[in-house]
């Protein structure tokens, strides 16, 4: 029988909630268990209400848990906020100043007091981790080993401080145990705990991206911080720009000069980048941009999640030009699609956008470790040797497929002229009417071949009467909801989109025609539904929309879908 529990650790910002979550995740990981961990926090460094929602199972889990089995309330407010969401035999660990003891499934522990006894109030998190793990029946030895590794660099004193604190936590929980028990056998499953941010950074590095320019913005900053550990090991440069306009234009400049480049931002920063997006498009300079979505407009909800920039990124910048848009549904997919974005952006000399969100970027999940760096990266650059006469090189020469051979400036005799103005084949400004038509046609003509590069949506139980259609980071949540609905006897399948644009309207229509389909999206205006209607002429029957900035949960989809189907 599968054991699948959810632990919520809540309190004020600055109380070390994420640290407790990380300790628990690592202990579980070391015991071969699977985790899915979501951090929910406000845009502040101290105070307020934040939590870590940690789902632990002995089977792979890919969506957040909702009903709470164990609640760790670092403040009273966490307890009152979550009382209604407790599962039947849930247990609560309550941080208390005065009370000590266990009644009505609430274990009151003075975390700070015990931490002080251990030698420092700062170890209150370790005390909490000890108490939780004790309740879950995890042998103390696993936590002890983890703490020894974690603080190895800080010396014996810090290790002892933390192991003492952990023991205090175990001691406080005593013999109290949660009803469900994992078998806590240390094992290496070969899996890794990873989030979307890190996977994108790895995907970029595996794509030979060497220049990273960015302006800090939640929830995209994690992508850049994930690159930092590799800066001593690989030839890469990261530059914090003065604004997002500079970030995107630096990336374009580096790419023009022949180095693969990445910039990452969220919707507001992407607004500032749209001018640069157009420059990359008309100058046919490869460019990969990650837009990690959060609710808007303007500043919106800075630390929360959304899927509300789809229509924006598809249409961003003036006039029309081809672009790729990808929306990964897991860290592994984020890795793969980042690689694909780099390869195709360079092959077609068009911008590629990877559309993620706060939920995907920040959620930690146990993934099978199948990350692969390709031995030979195809590149799409021409050199003097490839030309009959480098002196006659024309950056935008007309070709059958609209792709002009791309030379790198300063690397040979060929002179490279790139221009944001409309230009002739040589890259010189041209206001000629015929030339404008021909150049638009050349650029837009790439679409036909670009479509062939795109994977179709993944379809589960496609012959069902009702299909749930979603995209990007909600994939696994939709799959879990779909499975649960089928177990309840509902004839439901799912269509999961990760490669959005350009889309093959005929083949998308084939998937959805003669089916009732329900859109599942984290926005208020059903953006993918609008695109499907526009492109295929097929209209969605209903929509499960969630626009509160919080993650989707399988239960929410199940409830809303059931209502629509009735």
């Amino acid at each position, binding site marked *: 029988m599968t054991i699948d529990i959810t632990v919520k650790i809540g309190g004020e910002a600055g109380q070390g909630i994420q640290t407790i979550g990380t300790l628990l995740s690592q202990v579980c990981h070391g015991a071969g268990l699977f985790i899915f961990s979501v951090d929910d926090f406000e845009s502040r460094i101290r105070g307020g209400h934040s939590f870590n929602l940690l789902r632990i199972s002995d089977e792979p889990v890919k969506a957040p848990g909702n009903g709470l089995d164990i609640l760790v309330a670092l403040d009273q407010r966490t307890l009152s906020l979550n009382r209604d969401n407790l599962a039947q035999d849930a247990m609560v660990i309550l941080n208390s100043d005065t009370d000590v003891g266990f009644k009505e499934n609430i274990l009151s522990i003075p975390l700070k007091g015990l931490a002080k006894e251990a030698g420092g109030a700062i170890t209150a998190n370790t005390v909490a981790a000890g108490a939780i793990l004790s309740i879950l029946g995890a042998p103390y030895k696993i936590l002890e080993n983890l703490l020894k590794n974690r603080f190895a660099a800080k010396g014996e004193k810090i290790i002892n401080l933390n192991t003492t604190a952990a023991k205090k936590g175990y001691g406080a929980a005593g013999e109290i145990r949660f009803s469900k028990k994992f078998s806590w056998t240390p094992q290496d499953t070969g899996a890794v705990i990873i989030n979307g941010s890190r996977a994108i950074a*790895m995907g970029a590095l595996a794509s030979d991206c060497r220049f990273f320019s960015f302006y800090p913005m939640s929830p995209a900053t994690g992508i850049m911080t994930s690159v930092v550990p590799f800066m001593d090991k690989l030839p890469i440069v990261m530059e914090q720009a003065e604004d997002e306009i500079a970030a995107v234009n630096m990336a374009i400049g580096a790419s023009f000069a022949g180095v693969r480049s990445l910039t990452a931002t969220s919707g507001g920063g992407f607004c500032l980048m749209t001018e640069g997006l157009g420059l990359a498009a008309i100058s046919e300079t490869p460019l990969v941009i990650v837009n990690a979505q959060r609710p808007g407009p303007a500043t919106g909800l800075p630390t929360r999640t959304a899927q509300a920039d789809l229509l924006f990124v598809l249409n961003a910048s003036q006039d029309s030009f081809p672009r790729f848009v990808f929306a990964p549904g897991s860290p592994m997919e984020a890795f793969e699609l980042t690689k694909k974005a780099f390869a195709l952006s360079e092959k077609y000399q068009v911008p590629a956008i990877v559309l993620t969100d706060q939920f995907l970027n920040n959620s930690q999940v146990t993934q099978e470790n199948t990350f692969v760096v390709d031995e030979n990266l195809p590149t799409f650059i021409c050199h003097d040797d490839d030309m009959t006469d480098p002196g006659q090189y024309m950056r935008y020469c007309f070709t059958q497929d609209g792709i002009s051979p791309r030379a790198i400036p300063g690397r040979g005799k060929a002179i490279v002229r790139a221009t944001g103005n409309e230009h002739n084949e040589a890259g010189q400004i041209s206001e000629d009417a015929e030339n404008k038509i021909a150049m638009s046609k050349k650029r837009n003509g790439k679409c036909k071949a670009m479509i062939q590069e795109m994977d179709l949506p993944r379809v589960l139980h496609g012959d069902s009467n009702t299909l749930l259609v979603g995209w990007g980071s909600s994939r696994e949540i939709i799959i879990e909801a779909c499975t649960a609905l089928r177990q309840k006897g509902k004839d439901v399948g799912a269509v999961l989109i990760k490669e959005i644009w350009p889309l093959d309207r005929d083949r998308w229509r084939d998937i959805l025609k003669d089916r009732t389909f329900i859109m599942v999206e984290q926005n208020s205006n059903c953006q993918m539904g609008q695109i499907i209607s526009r492109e295929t002429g097929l209209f969605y029957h209903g929509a499960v929309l969630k626009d509160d900035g919080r993650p989707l949960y399988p239960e929410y989809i199940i409830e809303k879908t059931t209502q629509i189907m009735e």
Partner: protein
Amino acid sequence: MVQPNDYNNDFENKWCPGCGNFLILNAMKQAFAAQNIPPEKMMFISGIGQAGKTPHFIQGNIFHTLHGRALPVATGAKTANHDLNIVVNSGDGDCYGEGGNHFLAAIRRNVDITLLVHNNQVYGLTKGQASPTTALGTVTRLQNQGTTSQSFNPMSVALAAGIGFLARGFSGKTEQLTDLIRRAMAYPGFALIDILQPCVSFNKINTQKWYMDRVYDIEETGHDSADFAKAMALAMKWGDKIPTGVLYEQETVPFHQRIKALGKKTLISHAFDARKVSRAIL
């Protein structure tokens, strides 16, 4: 030896007859030839405006970018390949207005590029509106009751931001300008030459004569370009007498030398090593 004529190209020039830009273009060609740099080793990056068109009229690699954005593009290109000789052609509106934030950041980064700001104190491409360097109260077609903002002083701002090489030139003094461009390019770090120039179509105040009556060469009158306070005093000087020449020059460490990864060779010259990447990230 590279000749100035090697920088000629056959693309039709689109500036007004008599524009100061022709003289700046000429000085550029002379300066590149004097350094024996062949056109295929030069990269010209520009923003928008009449100055922004400069790269089209000269032989060499070019990226004619967006309004105000030449410096970030140049920063990216120089970081990718710091062997490139990058000259940025910008104007008073492009660089000090639309690109103001990038101007400050580029000085702070000390990217090893040469920035030529064609400063005619007016918007030429959009037909005569005030620019950041237009004097307060100047009447234009748009600001018909006179401009209401004080003029921007690029020289004092650049010094305050910590620039390592600061010069002012005048399009009418081509020989001096050629020399300034050559020295700016030789300087390892960010070099600004604010180049005063008349706009024959839209600036009826700051004419060729207006400048000729005012500009003087500080190297003729004597100036210690290593003296920051004296440089600042000259930077503040405007009106009856306008100083030209190298106001300030100070040894600095350019951006690419501040970056560890660029210590041994250029970013572009590394070969992709899949095994190394794999070991690092997996």
